[in-house]
């Protein structure tokens, strides 16, 4: 199928009535068109996952959150290396890849994961993540659909943001997204509690979450609610 026809088919699935693109449809159409179990779109900056603008189901939300918590996974690799990343058989990964992410992703039901960088020209924004509850690679057709969807999604993200007031994230990106702002609030609190920099505070928070096998945002919630203090742990 020529690329133009593929793009047209995917755009027509996205727009429905009129040219306004719904953020949630970006993920839904990505999953539907490629026959995957679910999809998520992660925004990245400075090689760090910043949050997801959409996910299609519980498992894809968990997969995004895992990568946000751990700072590793297919979306991070796809973004950093600026090329598609495929792991069609997570349970039998040929190379040791994503030591923390892989077992956790298997636990939420992913057997195969694929990630495609979102870029417009030389500009990189994040990645489109697909997961499947059965192992197996993408066909050429599925791969081509995913590439076009990543391209369309990248342009859609930029266009949605173009209409936002300066300095604020577009409400369309925020609405169905998950940016775990509580993690940054908790980092600020920990920086004061331990008298360290914000960057160090975030490292401490991640280390605690990882060591206790808990989601970063869940730990951050407790810090902000003042039911958990890392300085008390440090003093133990």
């Amino acid at each position, binding site marked *: 199928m020529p690329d133009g026809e593929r793009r047209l088919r995917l755009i027509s699935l996205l727009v429905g009535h009129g040219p306004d693109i719904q953020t949630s449809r970006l993920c839904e159409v990505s999953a539907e068109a490629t026959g995957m179990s679910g999809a998520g779109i992660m925004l990245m900056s400075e090689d760090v996952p910043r949050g997801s603008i959409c996910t299609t189901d519980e498992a894809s939300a968990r997969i995004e959150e895992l990568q946000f918590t751990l700072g590793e996974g297919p979306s991070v690799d796809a973004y950093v290396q600026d090329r598609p990343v495929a792991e069609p058989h997570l349970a039998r990964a040929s190379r040791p890849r994503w030591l923390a992410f892989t077992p956790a992703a298997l636990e939420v039901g992913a057997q195969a994961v694929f990630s495609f960088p979102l870029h417009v*020209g030389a500009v990189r924004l994040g990645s489109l993540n697909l997961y499947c509850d059965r192992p197996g690679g993408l066909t050429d057709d599925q791969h081509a659909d995913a590439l076009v969807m990543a391209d369309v999604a990248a342009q859609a*993200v930029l266009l949605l943001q173009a209409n936002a007031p300066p300095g*604020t994230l577009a409400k369309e990106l925020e609405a169905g997204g998950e940016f775990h702002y509580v993690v940054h609030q908790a980092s*600020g609190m920990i920086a004061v509690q331990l008298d360290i920099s914000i960057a160090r505070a975030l490292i401490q928070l991640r280390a605690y979450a990882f060591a206790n096998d808990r989601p970063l945002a869940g730990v951050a919630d407790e810090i902000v609610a003042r039911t958990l203090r890392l300085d008390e742990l440090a003093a133990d």
Partner: protein
Amino acid sequence: MPREAMLTRTFVELADSLVADFDVVDVLTLLTSRCVEVLGVAAAGLMLVGIDGNLRVMASSSEGMRVLELFELQSQQGPCLDCYQTGLPVSNVDLATARRRWPRFTPEAIAAGFRTVHALPMRLRGNVIGALNLFHQDPDEMEESDVEAAQALADVATIAILQHRAAIEAQVLNEQLHLALNGRIIIEQAKGIVAERRHLNMEEAFYALRNHARNRRLMLVDVANGVIDGSFDLSELDSSDAQPAS
């Protein structure tokens, strides 16, 4: 070529032109030519609103159509302007009965050989960014399926314009995105610092920062940056600031 096949071919041509660098005027001109072939109209023209809020003729299927569209803009009356101003389609207006509606445009359009006129809005997020004019030489009415096909072409043109914008402004738009993402993170971090130092909850910390910024006409993100790098003395924060309104 059957009409459905021609319509499909047009969509494919337009979609192909979205792929890489493309000249948006070329795409829109292609669209007007295809409207003539696919929809069986005599002429088609496309106007877009510029940043100054005024409509401009972007593409026309013929030179005669271009001249008539320029006249429409100059006289500030006609189907494209009505469509743009109301955001609603102008359908099947017989020029024989339109002299009162458009006293200057109507005789000009009749002299150019047209009889029936239509205009479809190019819509985006509830805003109208332009209009597609379709002119017939006979009094035949456009069927509902033709109007739908024309509106679909107008929507594809809208996406073409948008994708073009994303491609040429990618660098700037991406910087805006990163500023927004990073700015929000800085504000959340500063809230955490203020909450901990001043024994406030997150909401109170936010109001304290926001009201401080507002009262001194500072950007919230700049105040937040000062909190994080230590250049802003937190004792300057008024406890009465930690309320919804200052």
